[in-house]
């Protein structure tokens, strides 16, 4: 029998804000243990939460970018459970009224090759809600230690419908989601820093069936590749259990990305009763139309929309767009260079190939690059105008990387400019024609390649600095008139 997988993802994304979700202390990664704490973070007696408006703005922005309906009121609930990383032993979250409902994430499935765009489709979202992150436990021989620096960091939970059908789709979903979050400035989604974390609900069913199978929750999938590998492994495991006549048990499993194996953490019987109720310390916050309009005005173009526009508006090849678009700053860099040069394809090539290669080699981020869009545009224009020959262009590019000087300055200082004195070039061409009457006759007789016989003497006269294109044009004009 053939089976299909049904997958839903719950993705936790830390929201980028200066301070924590319910207090003024800074939110961040890498500070000394327990330094990002205060009475609210540590849940000292008497401390009270106050909502960070910026965190709400960020989640509303995420919701608007993903086409969610935004709840008219942001309401807070308490999720009660005891765990040492949770200072209050309840988490402030959103239970029955999430701030964002519905919406979707557009994904691109793998194409036939990396040069070919794959199929696109929308993966439906159930909801997005805002909550607070917990602290971090470290277990050692001498006991367990708790670092509360992460506790209280704004965290949004993005829940998809069981709308994904393969590990590759899950991979594409997370990649697209991450790009959108980074585009919106909502999160950096660095999974190594725990800024993005994913749990997957996986079940299988015979192809053609509509009822859902028993689901297994996979936890601790701490990179996008592990998500793909973990889901693929779980699908194989479930198929093998069912084919051997067994039944899938509803449980939570832990996938180990290093060993590629999973083990059961707990079964459904141990499910919590979280005793949700509205948090009496926090008043509901009205999110009115004007508020939403302000945030909508700050939403960037979505990555796939931008890619489609680059393809149609600039006629840039798919491979170039798929390098440029995932990085918002890079795509902005490209658009600026394209606009300044008027030659988007050439600008795209320089950026996607030479610039990225050189920055990568030097370990320099784009933001610190000495080469700015105007440099690329200047270089493109010099080449297009025939002012410098191809090999010289590479030399100019390398010098720009080095010095940050304008390409025109480099060309002039290094004497790389193709001979620009049309009169002088014409004189050299006339001399070459006069010195080889036989080739002139051959050309006139229809032997086009005879023109090459003149180019050597012209280049010699020009000491190699003549623009070959211009030489060719001048020779043809003179031969036509001769």
């Amino acid at each position: 029998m053939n089976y299909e997988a049904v997958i839903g993802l719950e993705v936790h994304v830390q929201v980028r804000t200066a301070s924590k979700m319910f207090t003024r202390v800074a939110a961040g990664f890498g500070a000394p243990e327990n330094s990002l704490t205060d009475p609210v973070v540590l849940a000292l007696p008497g401390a009270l939460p106050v909502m960070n408006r910026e965190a709400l703005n960020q989640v509303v922005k995420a919701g608007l970018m993903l086409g969610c309906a935004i709840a008219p009121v942001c309401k807070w609930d308490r999720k009660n459970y005891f765990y040492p990383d949770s200072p209050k032993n309840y988490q402030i979250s959103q239970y029955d009224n999430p701030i964002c409902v519905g919406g979707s994430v557009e994904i691109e499935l793998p194409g036939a090759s990396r040069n070919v765009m794959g199929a696109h489709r929308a993966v439906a979202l159930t909801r997005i809600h805002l909550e607070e992150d917990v602290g971090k436990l470290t277990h050692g021989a001498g006991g367990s230690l708790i670092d509360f620096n992460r506790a209280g960091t704004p965290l949004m939970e993005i829940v998809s419908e069981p709308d994904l059908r393969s590990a590759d789709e899950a991979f594409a979903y997370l990649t697209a989601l991450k790009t959108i979050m980074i585009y919106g400035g909502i999160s950096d989604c660095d999974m190594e820093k725990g800024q993005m974390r994913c749990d997957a609900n996986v079940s299988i069913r015979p192809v053609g069936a509509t009822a859902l199978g028993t689901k297994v929750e996979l936890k601790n999938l701490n990179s996008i590749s592990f998500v793909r590998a973990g889901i693929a492994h779980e699908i194989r495991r479930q198929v093998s259990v069912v084919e051997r006549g067994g039944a899938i048990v509803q449980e939570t499993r832990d996938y180990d990305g290093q060993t590629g194996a999973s083990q059961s953490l707990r079964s459904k019987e141990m499910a919590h009763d979280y005793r949700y109720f509205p948090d009496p310390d926090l008043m509901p916050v009205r999110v009115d139309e004007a508020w939403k309009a302000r945030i909508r005005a700050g939403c960037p173009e979505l990555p796939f929309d931008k890619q489609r526009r680059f393809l149609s508006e600039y006629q840039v090849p798919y491979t170039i767009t798929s390098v440029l678009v995932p990085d918002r700053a890079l795509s902005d860099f490209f658009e600026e260079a394209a606009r300044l040069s008027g030659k988007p394809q050439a600008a795209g090539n320089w950026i996607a190939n030479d610039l990225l290669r050189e920055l990568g080699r030097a370990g320099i981020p784009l933001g610190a690059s000495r080469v700015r869009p105007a440099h690329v545009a200047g270089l493109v224009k010099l080449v297009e105008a025939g002012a410098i020959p191809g090999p010289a262009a590479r030399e100019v590019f390398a010098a720009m990387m080095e010095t940050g000087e304008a390409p025109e300055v480099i060309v002039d200082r290094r004497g790389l400019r193709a001979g620009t004195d049309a009169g002088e070039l014409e004189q050299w061409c006339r001399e070459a024609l006069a010195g080889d009457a036989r080739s002139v006759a051959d050309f006139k007789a229809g032997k086009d390649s005879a023109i090459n016989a003149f180019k050597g003497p012209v280049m010699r006269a020009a000491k190699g600095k003549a623009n070959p294109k211009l030489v060719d044009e001048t020779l043809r004009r003179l031969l036509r008139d001769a």
Partner: protein
Amino acid sequence: MSAELIFKPITELASLLAEGKVSSVELMRAHVARTRAVDPRLQAFNSFDEADALSQAAASDGRRAAGASRGPLDGIPVGMKDVISVAGQPLTASSRMLANYVSPYDATVTRRLREAGAIIWGRLNLDEFAMGSSTENSATRTTGNPWDLTRVPGGSSGGSAAAVAAGEAAAALGSDTGGSIRQPAALCGVVGLKPTYGLVSRYGLIAFASSLDQIGPFARSVEDTAITLGAIAGHDPLDSTSLRNPIPDYRAGLDRPGATWKLGIAREYFAEGLDPEVAAAVERAVDHYRSIGCEIREVSLPHTKYAVGAYYIIATAECSSNLSRYDGVRYGHRSAEAADAVDLYFKSRAEGFGAEVKRRIILGTYVLSSGYYDAYYLRAQKVRTLIRRDFLNAFREVDAILTPTSPTAAFRKGERAADPLAMYLSDIYTIGVNLAGLPGISVPCGFTRGRLPIGLQIIGKPFGEADMLAIARAYERDHAWSAQHPEMNGA
């Protein structure tokens, strides 16, 4: 001089200080001496820090000498219920759980009192985590009633009420979730005011039930109460439930000669269980208002009978969650016996909490549980809405409502300790005010034949503290109850 300073109203002490007839240090020494003399029998204080209080007093004298006095509270000792954070001082909630806990920060009310120049004085006993009506649920000590030490001071702010009544502090702060300021004020013969929900910041107050808790003042006169309230009221960005209403000058609006009000009497508040002596005293107070030209109208609060039930669902639900943080992990009592994390929770909480706190945590956990939420918590919230609507309907006809504060005067220690339900009924007249978020004040309105104080409760409109205080003052002006002080004899 020292003994004469005790029992003087803040207004008079402020004049003596301003005129240089007494220093704040002398005033503080007098209160320390009084406390040392009576507290071994009264047991109102969990602790006090004499050196710290005297240094605050010296600072106050310094300000006055420099012409930088901060007003009528500058240099006045104000006691603090031991659930209100004071930086560097113990914060025990009268619980074993926090026996060794010292707060690293000031509550907003503490900061505001400091800004008004008040001396933050002592940690006052209460029912553990403010759960109770007699202060007998304290894990630290049993406070007596200054009028009869064999009787309770009421609760949960029993230490605050007793300290003010016994002259150990000129004023005190308490917290009121279901009557915990007004009921002990009535039982101890002092003035106690529970503000409108949202008027006073809860930041730094150990939470019992967040949607009901309010901090408020105790004092020996309405005017002193108005002064203290004025110092602590106002919006606080650290408390999302604090409101931005402007704060009037409560003291300036107190005396309104010739002013008359429409005052409501609710039949539901003069029902079964009301002690006849209390009823008679309250009726005499009503007669007084009538005699000064107030119109007395009967109003109906038909959902009153559901108030205690709704209260014990909402308050316990919130407390079950609020008290989760006391787990022995970061601070507070940690069991020495724990085998693992779960065991640490069980044992630390089993050892750290007293019986009444556990009873309420269990009840609150139950009513929030899956499958019971709708039947209990959600329904209780609906009842709460109806109770608030009752009051708002009544306030279309009247300016304030007069009731007894407590159905009885102070009862004997141990009398109700074994019967939680009887204890819960001590708050029957005060709980509705918390559920509706309204202000309420208890003012002394006489004594029983056994010389136990009786309190009159005046319930005001939302943010109607100024009128409520003026109405209270209109009674107090013609009744010298606050001139009588307990002799502190007996057991």
